[in-house]
């Protein structure tokens, strides 16, 4: 032990520092909580960036003893949420502060840069940010933020445009007004789960399986229980006999309930074997190391092909049950079940057959596909393969739970607080009124926090021990015990006439769900339901089959199944265009849907039930195509920088949904406070995307009051009303729709109350700035504050409130087109994305600056999936690149040289103020656009992502 002295933000501290104590741990203990950890000290993500003697360093990669005597600067030195510095404010204004887990680090670095270079170049910005991993908003808007900050520091005003503005008649909607929770996030103030943990908590650690497939023959925890401080150890022998699934979906779920909290059979490397709760993490780890487990190791399988094979080992071989729609012959089917495998319980038939490793299956068609192929002049069939991709949220999965007033309270980083409550209730076997889930700010989810991956275990551990319990995934656990993108094999058969008219399409999707069936029906269905409706083709057919295997778990990931389906369908269409000698752009224009086209294909594409057939509503697809083609100069050949560099262009039509019509549900309520300000409670879960800002704008717009007169409370199951959660691009449309309706209801009630108080007719009253009711007939005014005061006086009629509930059968589909220009090196296989233009119709972008950030972030994410990212398992099922450096996420160095996002202005007829969704759709374009561009450049079709240099060299025949 040695004592060191350090000066942090001009304040001197003396601290004890053992040899291996990191600078970050010291800083956090001293209260500098903005210094966060995303990589367990890998020195990659940069959430732990601080300045030491005016030089940026990773605090988690620095020993405290290394900085004895040093001057340290953290983001707390910049400004508070109530008094941001110019850089912090510009970051909020520009839209880069989204999930924001390392936004304070970015603010620190950029402030430091601007102090040295008041007008930095793009290259300098790029350099300084090169040690930060930004997953949510991409990097492009950081240049805007720096420009804005530079302008502000020089002249006290912004000269540059932040983002385009929409709907001139509206004041808040369609305008860049900053994110309401942005200041707290960029300042690094308490906002995340880890900030809520109180002293005295117990630590939970998990013993994980070293085997991909094995029965636990015996587990001996006797020595582990003797370790001082150990409170409990949960194993398959003492956990509740409750089968459930971790997908936070609609209820009943279209996913099989195929797991317990812990199972006798482990099905992937990293599967839970035991959970240890102890007073300290060190004690829990010591106990974990003393647990003796004897395994009966089974042969693992990792691919769809292995799972499909005759006689393949069964991943689930337990009893099958149905809660409804039980098929005939189930007793016979269950005769050779192995009780060690537990159960698989279907809420309703998903056409699974676990004895053949099939978790679910579906099929459907419109028209006569065989006739369509017969009518075609050319028919091709191609198979495309996608790999397993990690969501990599900067804040890992984390949960803190405690007992308060006899109830279980969970602080969670989740996209689905109400599903967390339901599923934890099942596991703990307690009713929902005994549980409160508080969704904190979410430091990145991207789908993986739609799944209840840690809250089930933490909630149960807390409930049985009565102790406050804290758990946080390590980064390795994020890779091996988390939700990932399903690997898929998608075969597309497509026929067309010589003029490019497509006569028939058939998609066959084989998905690999891994050990458990989270989203096993809906993700592969989505590969069809979010792609086939792009085409105005009369004959279409699809089949999806999802297989169990022993890869790391899969689940929801932004875009869901659509990125895979889009990659296959669009690339196949380009291949067909090439075969018949038609320009691919012309073929797209000829076969795309347009407003009014009846989407018959949707009938077979419901999520476990019949889908709703609706016509195409608002649609910016054609404008996206036309403008994108102009921007990229489609058809104009570009020469490479040298003979070995070849340049090509590609694009893809894309679509997604705006939530799930007939399944999703948003609720909100709002009240007028006694001083004339407002509070709105939304069930929606803001995961960094700006949903709370959307919610606030619904009130601001309706009542003509600025955003700071509106407080949003969201994601708290006690105070907020039910919402299905932030997934399937539902936030703005469903939760926002509910807030819109709550605001309208509140407006009606407020006007009604005002009419009584003012002795006027409601029809003569309107609302206006700065927050008052105005009579167009008499000119009388009544401030909201006076109105509320009167209503709340002893003789008043009570608090003015409003509620809103939003459901719809309407499909407000966002459309778009992504264009890419790539340079391919024929000697090295290297691909450079020179240009990437993402054009999308989001209806009315309520927060245009955040919408652009969503678009940039999702597009860059999909570029990463296309070119770099891939979880690689060895022959035993161990992920050999379970860290950032080995895995390969795109950083600022990988941002396309010319990267543009364009919001196509189309007003939707149903969404709040004409809004549709924005972010998920943007993950669908890169893979096909880049694959097609690579073909245009060097003449090879890339039918397996990621398109690594090695694969390109193989296609080029440079290596065998």
């Amino acid at each position, binding site marked *: 032990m*040695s004592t060191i002295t350090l000066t942090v933000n001009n304040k001197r501290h003396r601290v004890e520092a*053992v*040899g*291996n104590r*990191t600078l970050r741990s010291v800083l956090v203990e001293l209260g500098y909580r903005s210094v966060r950890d995303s*990589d*367990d*000290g*890998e*020195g*990659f993500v*940069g959430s732990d*960036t601080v300045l030491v003697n005016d*030089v*940026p*360093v*990773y605090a*988690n*990669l*620095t*020993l405290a*003893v*290394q900085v*004895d005597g040093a001057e340290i600067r953290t983001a707390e030195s910049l400004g508070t949420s109530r008094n941001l510095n110019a850089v912090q404010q510009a970051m909020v204004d520009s839209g880069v502060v989204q999930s924001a887990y390392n936004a304070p680090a970015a603010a620190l*670095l950029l402030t430091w840069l601007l102090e040295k270079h008041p007008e930095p170049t793009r290259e300098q910005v790029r*350099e*300084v*940010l*090169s*040690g*930060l991993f930004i997953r949510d908003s991409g990097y492009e808007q950081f240049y805007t933020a720096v420009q804005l900050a530079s302008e502000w520091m020089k002249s006290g005003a912004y000269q540059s445009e932040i983002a385009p503005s929409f709907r001139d008649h509206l004041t808040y909607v369609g305008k860049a007004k900053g994110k309401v929770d942005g200041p707290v996030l960029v300042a690094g103030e308490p906002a995340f789960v880890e900030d809520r943990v109180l002293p005295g908590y117990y630590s939970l650690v998990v013993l994980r399986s070293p085997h991909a497939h094995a029965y636990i023959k015996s587990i001996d925890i006797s020595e582990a229980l003797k370790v001082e401080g150990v409170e409990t150890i949960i194993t398959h022998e003492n956990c509740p006999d409750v089968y459930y699934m971790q997908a936070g979906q609609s209820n009943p779920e279209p996913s099989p309930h195929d797991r317990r909290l812990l199972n006798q059979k482990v099905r992937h490397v990293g599967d839970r074997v035991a959970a240890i709760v102890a007073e300290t993490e060190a004690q829990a780890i010591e106990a974990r190391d003393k647990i003796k487990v004897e395994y009966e190791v089974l042969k693992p399988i990792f691919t769809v092909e292995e799972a499909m094979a005759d006689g393949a080992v069964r991943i689930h071989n337990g009893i099958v049950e149905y809660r409804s729609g039980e098929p005939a012959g189930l007793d016979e089917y269950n005769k050779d079940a192995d009780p060690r495998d537990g159960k698989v319980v279907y809420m309703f038939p998903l056409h699974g057959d676990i004895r053949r490793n099939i978790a679910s299956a579906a099929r459907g068609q419109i028209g006569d596909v065989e006739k369509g192929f017969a009518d075609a002049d050319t028919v091709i069939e191609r198979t495309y393969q996608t790999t397993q991709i990690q969501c990599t949220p900067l804040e890992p999965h984390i949960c803190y739970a405690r007992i308060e007033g006899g109830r279980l309270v969970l602080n969670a980083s989740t996209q689905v607080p109400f599903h967390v409550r339901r599923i934890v209730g099942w596991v703990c076997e307690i009713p929902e009124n005994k549980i409160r889930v508080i969704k904190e700010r979410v430091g990145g989810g991207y789908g993986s926090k739609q799944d209840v991956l840690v809250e089930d275990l933490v909630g149960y551990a807390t409930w049985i021990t009565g102790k406050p319990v804290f758990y946080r995934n390590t*980064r390795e656990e994020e890779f091996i015990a988390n939700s990932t993108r399903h690997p898929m094999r998608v075969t597309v058969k497509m026929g067309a006439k010589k003029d490019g008219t497509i006569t028939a399409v058939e998609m066959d999707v084989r998905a690999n769900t891994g050990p458990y069936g989270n989203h096993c029906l809906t993700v592969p269905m989505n590969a069809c339901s979010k792609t086939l409706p792009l085409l105005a083709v009369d004959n279409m057919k699809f089949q999806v089959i999802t297989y169990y295997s022993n890869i790391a778990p899969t689940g929801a990931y932004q875009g869901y199944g659509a990125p895979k389906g889009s990659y296959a369908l669009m690339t196949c269409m380009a291949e067909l265009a090439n075969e018949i000698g038609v320009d691919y752009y012309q073929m797209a224009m000829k076969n795309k849907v347009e407003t009014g086209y009846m989407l018959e294909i949707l009938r077979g594409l419901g999520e476990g039930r019949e889908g709703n057939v609706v016509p195409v509503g608002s649609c910016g697809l054609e404008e996206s195509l036309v403008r994108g083609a102009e921007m990229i100069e489609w058809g104009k050949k570009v020469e490479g920088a040298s003979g070995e560099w070849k340049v090509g262009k590609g694009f893809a039509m894309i679509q997604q949904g705006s939530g799930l019509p007939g399944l999703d549900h948003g609720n909100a309520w709002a009240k007028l406070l006694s001083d004339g300000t407002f509070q709105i409670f939304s069930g929606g879960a803001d995961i960094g995307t700006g949903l709370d800002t959307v919610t606030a704008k619904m009130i601001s717009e309706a009542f003509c009051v600025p955003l700071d007169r509106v407080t949003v409370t969201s994601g708290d199951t006690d105070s907020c009303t039910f919402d299905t959660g932030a997934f399937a691009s539902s936030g703005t449309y469903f939760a926002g729709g509910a807030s819109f309706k709550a605001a309208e209801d509140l407006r009606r009630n407020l006007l009604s109350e005002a009419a009584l108080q003012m002795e006027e007719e409601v029809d003569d009253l309107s609302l206006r700035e700065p927050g008052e009711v105005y009579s167009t007939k008499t000119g009388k005014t009544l401030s909201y504050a006076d109105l509320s005061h009167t209503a709340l006086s002893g003789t008043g009629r009570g608090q003015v409130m409003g509620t809103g509930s939003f459901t719809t059968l309407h499909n407000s589909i966002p459309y778009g087109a992504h264009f890419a220009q790539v340079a391919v090196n024929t*000697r*090295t*296989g290297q691909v450079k994305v020179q240009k990437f233009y993402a054009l999308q119709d989001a209806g009315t972008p309520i927060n245009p600056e955040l919408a652009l950030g969503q678009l940039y972030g999702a597009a860059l994410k999909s570029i990463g999936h296309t*070119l*770099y990212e891939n979880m*690689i398992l060895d022959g035993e099922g161990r992920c*050999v*690149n379970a*860290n*950032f*450096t*080995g*895995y*390969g*996420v*795109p*950083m600022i*160095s*990988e941002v396309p040289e010319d990267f543009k996002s364009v919001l196509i202005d189309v007003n939707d007829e149903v969404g709040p103020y004409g809004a549709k969704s924005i972010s998920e759709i943007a993950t669908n374009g890169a893979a096909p656009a880049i694959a097609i561009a690579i073909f245009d450049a060097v003449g090879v079709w890339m039918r397996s992502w*990621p398109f*690594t*240099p*090695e694969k390109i*060299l193989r296609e080029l025949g*440079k*290596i*065998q």
Partner: protein
Amino acid sequence: MIQEYLVASNIADALTLKRNNARSVWFAGGTEINRMGGTVDAKVGIALKGLGLDQIVDEGPVIRIGAMVSLQALIDSPLVPQWLKDAGHYCGSYTRRHMATIGGNLALMSDHSFLAPALLASRCTLVTANVTEGGAYSEDEVPVREYYTYYKQHATTLLLAILLPKDKRYVGSRRYALSVQNRSAATVAFGAMMGEALVISHVRIVAAIHGSGVQRLTDVENAIESGELSSREDVQLAVSQALEAVDDFVGSREYKRYIAAEGIGQLFGEFLKGGAR
């Protein structure tokens, strides 16, 4: 993981601390020692900070670069040749470049080293310090090739500085990875001098191949110097045959050999065009 961090008061003190502490390592920037999944297994770190090893000095015939000079300082210095700045940029993170040092990166001699191939190709000289059991302090100038050959035996030797000769010599390197900060499949370097009558001499060919370590291809070097190999294609073929590589998550054996050979071929071609720089 380091359990104890010892701060030396001077170089001799550092050497004594090293000699007296089993399982100790030199602690430069700490980016590998402290890193999650780092390859250094040691209990005691001997800190090199504050020993004056962070200077870059023009000493006439050589540029002297202290072992504790950070990769970013290399890039920022007007004294450092471009080929070494290029290699410094292979570390894609600006923040990490401020922490990692030239000495630390060279001493690791890892299969994904940013600098080792280029430094080996440069024929630089290393200034090292030792202390005997009796306490006698000595400094030596060691050719980098010798350090490479015996670097494990140099574990107790303290690397003080790198001396870059100002000879008219070509040095170039290439790094191949999926993305800038992804683990590299191959980092290769080529160095040579072009004499009168286009005689090629002092050739160095080095490749850090993931999974197979840093390799110097002396047979290929000799064949180029003797004129046996004179075209880019011939050199590429010889390199691909000489390299050791294995299949792993970064790439197949075949890919690594191909891409490393391609890189060295490019550098050789560039050398033939430009002669020296």
